[in-house]
């Protein structure tokens, strides 16, 4: 990005410079020598403008690579090429290097603020704790080197080259600040030290006004900051016993510690010597009371080391109070630890050098817990409550034994671990629910696919389709959820569904009705167990079973054999109270007479209840009997006499035999009358046959 943006800026700088030279030439038109010199420079400038951006990118890339791979600037100036052999350094080379550094410093000065932010970020990316300006691959020195390399090729005198480069840098410097600013924004957007390094800013604003030497193990946390600021004194104090200060054991030290302890326990004022130190009780919780004590003259009662200690501790709390990530409520709690921490640091200087020091870890943990708190950290939250208890305990218990910090740290870490464990459990439960919901959705889809064909089948009763789409879908989904589509429950649920669909269709013959009777018990059992497994509400179950009873009755009735029209004409005698409704037996078992059966079979077949037949026995006696009943399978014929008494019962075969042998014939009452009339008429037509 830098090379592209810088290349474009450089092109604009060249254009501007060309215009400046042109104007300058016009101004000094009378001075031939100067004008020619400017013309020559202008000519070289335009030559430089050819393929400017590409050349710049190539040159800058070289400078960048040289720095990105090494910790310090590698370039040896002279003839424009890097020297790998030892050689004497001539004056010209030194002058050129110095001139280049001057130009680089000029650029650096034009964008100091931006470079200040950029250097630590570039160092962070390169994994270097310290990165000075010449070593910065994106720095102004690298840019100047690239410009220098481009100008080296110009065919002009060394002084003119230097002049041209000088003018170009001057013009170029105007555009460089926004470019570096944009680069910083880009890095921030990519989370490269987005908040910068506050200790650096603090160091620049520090009232001592001098940078502290940096440790090779620079820390990003607040305790690391303290370490950096306190290092010179901590090192000096290291000469004492294991970093432990003896000052606090002295008389003055004990007085100061007593005064601090008094303030720690809630006093708003405390005397030290002939002075009284008063705290503003209405001050906010984030007021740096250590600064207030310093301003009130506490420093006069302290030695050099202790003065630095309170200064550093005050700075520590400044940073905490300024850190926007830490909620105010937590800052106020941490703020109450100012005096205890100061006392601890005075007692034990390892506070600054030991990263595992419990008080440091406690403050870090409090701050970190608050930073990672989602939403507003209110005073009724568990974290606030836990932190407040810890602070109160330290205020109350800490005198000169630092173990209370370790105990409080453990209590806080236990609380945090417990909350994290609960959070993990809640998260696990939520994850489980989500997974379960997903499985349920899949199972429901599988169920919907299974019922799709029946749901859209308009021939099925609407109540069954509704039942499948709503209730049985839940059963199928439950079965799919429990054992998948290959499980027994799924197979049973699908089979039950198919049985249900079949059961409500019209049953058109006795075989189907018989099959329905046989399949009903397992069907009902399957429906009950399926709905039980899917926890269908009892009311819904009962409502469906009530509807199913109706549907099954309708399915059976829909298959009723049609009434035989020929039977309807038969006058059925009123045999009693049960016969008020007409009886229309159709006789499905009745075999139709075959075409080659004798005529007598047909005559028997044509017999109807109520018909009269004439029977002649072996002796020639004639009886007239009335057919009173034909068995449903037409295997038996019952006859009665005029009195209604049973006359005889004949099987079908016997009756056919009698018709065949003329021992039986139809002989209704009307036929007898017809015969008599016919006989009378015949006698009149044939007088010779008339009885005399």
């Amino acid at each position: 990005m830098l090379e592209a943006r810088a290349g474009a800026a450089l092109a604009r700088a060249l254009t501007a410079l060309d215009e400046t030279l042109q104007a300058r030439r016009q101004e000094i038109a009378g001075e031939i020598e100067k004008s020619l010199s400017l013309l020559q420079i202008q000519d070289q400038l335009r030559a430089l403008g050819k393929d400017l951006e590409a050349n710049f990118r190539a040159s800058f890339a070289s400078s960048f690579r040289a720095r990105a791979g090494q910790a310090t600037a590698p370039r040896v100036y002279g003839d424009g090429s890097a020297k790998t052999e030892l050689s004497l350094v001539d004056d010209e080379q030194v002058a050129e290097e110095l001139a280049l550094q001057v130009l680089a410093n000029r650029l650096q000065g034009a964008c100091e603020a931006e470079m200040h932010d950029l250097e630590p970020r570039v160092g962070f990316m390169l994994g270097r704790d310290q990165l000075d300006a010449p070593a910065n691959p994106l720095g102004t020195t690298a840019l100047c080197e690239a410009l220098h390399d481009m100008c080296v090729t110009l065919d002009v005198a060394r002084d003119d080259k230097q002049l041209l480069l000088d003018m170009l840098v001057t013009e170029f410097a105007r555009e460089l600040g926004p470019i570096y600013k944009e680069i910083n924004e880009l890095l921030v957007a990519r989370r490269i030290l987005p908040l910068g390094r506050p200790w650096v800013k603090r160091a620049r604003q520090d009232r001592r006004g001098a940078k502290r030497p940096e440790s090779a193990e620079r820390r990003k946390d607040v305790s690391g900051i303290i370490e950096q600021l306190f290092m010179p004194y901590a090192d000096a104090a290291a000469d004492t016993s294991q970093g432990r200060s003896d000052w606090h054991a002295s008389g003055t030290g004990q007085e100061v510690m007593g005064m601090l302890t008094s303030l720690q326990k809630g006093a708003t004022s405390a005397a030290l010597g002939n002075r009284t130190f008063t705290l503003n009780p209405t001050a906010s919780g984030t007021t740096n009371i250590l600064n207030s004590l310093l301003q009130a003259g506490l420093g006069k009662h302290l030695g050099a080391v202790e003065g630095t200690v309170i200064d550093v501790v005050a700075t520590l709390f400044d940073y905490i109070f300024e850190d926007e990530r830490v909620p105010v409520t937590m800052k106020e709690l941490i703020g109450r630890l100012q005096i205890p921490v100061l006392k601890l640091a005075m007692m034990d200087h390892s506070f600054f050098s030991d990263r595992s020091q419990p008080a440091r870890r406690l403050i870090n943990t409090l701050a970190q817990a608050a930073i990672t708190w989602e939403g507003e950290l209110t005073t009724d939250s568990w974290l606030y409550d836990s932190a407040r208890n810890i602070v109160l305990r330290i205020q109350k218990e800490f005198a000169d034994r630092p173990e209370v910090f370790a105990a409080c740290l453990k209590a806080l870490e236990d609380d945090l671990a417990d909350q994290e464990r609960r959070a993990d459990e809640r998260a696990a439960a939520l994850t489980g629910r989500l997974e379960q919901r997903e499985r349920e959705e899949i199972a429901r889809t599988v169920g919907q696919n299974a019922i799709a064909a029946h749901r859209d089948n308009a021939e099925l009763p609407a109540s069954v389709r509704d039942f499948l789409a709503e209730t049985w879908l839940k059963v199928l989904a439950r079965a799919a959820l429990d054992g998948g589509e290959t499980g027994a429950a799924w197979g049973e649920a699908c089979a039950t569904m198919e049985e249900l669909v079949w059961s409500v269709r019209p049953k058109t013959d006795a075989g189907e009705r018989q099959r329905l009777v046989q399949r009903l018990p397992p069907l009902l059992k399957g429906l009950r167990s399926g709905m039980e497994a899917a926890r269908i509400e009892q009311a819904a179950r009962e409502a469906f079973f009530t509807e199913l009873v109706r549907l099954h009755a309708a399915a059976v009735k829909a298959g009723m054999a049609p009434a035989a029209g020929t039977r309807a004409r038969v006058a059925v005698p009123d045999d009693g109270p049960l016969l008020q409704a007409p009886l229309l037996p159709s006789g499905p078992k009745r075999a139709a007479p075959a075409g080659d059966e004798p005529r007598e079979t047909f005559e028997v077949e044509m017999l109807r209840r109520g018909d009269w037949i004439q029977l002649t026995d072996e002796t020639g006696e004639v009886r007239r009997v009335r057919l009173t009943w034909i068995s449903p399978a037409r295997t038996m014929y019952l006859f009665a006499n005029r009195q209604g008494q049973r006359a005889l019962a004949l099987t079908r075969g016997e009756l056919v035999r009698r018709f065949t042998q003329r021992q039986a014939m139809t002989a209704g009452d009307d036929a007898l009358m017809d015969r008599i009339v016919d006989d009378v008429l015949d006698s009149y037509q044939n007088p010779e046959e008339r009885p005399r």
Partner: protein
Amino acid sequence: MSDPATTRDPSETIGNIRRFLLAAEALPSPKGTALRFAELARDPDAGMDAMAQVIRSDPALSGFVLRAANAARYGGGKPILDLNRAMVRLGVNAVRSHALAVSLIRDGKGVRCARFDYDGFWTASLLTASLMEALARRNNEFPAPDAFVLGLLSRIGRLAFATAAPGDYAQVLERDAAGGVALEVLEQRAFGFDHHELSSVLLADWGIPTALADVVYWQCDPEGGGFAPESRPYRLAGALQLAGSLADYCLAPAEHPQDAGTVYLRAAVLEVPAGEIAALTEASLADLRDWLRLVGLPVPATPAPVL
């Protein structure tokens, strides 16, 4: 002897139904008290005293009539001991039906079919009769006494097979016990007709209204009988199937699992809720115990059916 259940040619045996009629004299039939009572019932000149006299000649029947007349379902509140009044309260037809049942069962002696469960047959027949009576009373569509008789005799054809052809029918029953083939099919293979048809023939032969004989025949498939939808014969055939299946299932559910389906379906068609089925079954089982004590049959343990 060949196996009649598998080798008999139906065409040879169809004509032989007559021999079952000819053998009907050996069947239990209305006689004695029942026959005399039936004759009086048809005699317009016969008075209630004459009928009571017939009943009195049979102490067991007398006691049963009095007990029935005093039962709550006949509206009895104040106990009565007068047979005349008992008959009035029960109705002549009811008394006749009960007399018939007693006589049929008492007279069931003669040739024995080895595999035929006579006690079981009559127990099931009595329960069927009692259920039919209860259904008739509930639906108020049929005279309860007629329904009782119809239930009692609805499977008389089985008894006729066992009486007229004890050896052959024993083999049929043995095959039936082996399972796999319906009894009706085995009967048709052996004799050319099944007990439904034989029952209907016998009833017609005994002078039972032929319309009822048709109903008895079609009880196995009421929808197949060509009855008019919702006609009384259709509903009567359905009630008969319901009562018979319910009786079989109550007495031996393990042997008749399919009867649960029949009961469900017939109750659905007749629109009898499951709760009422349970109630009338319980009442009929109580009646059954009375009947079995009257006729001297063992009282089986009959748990309430779970359908």
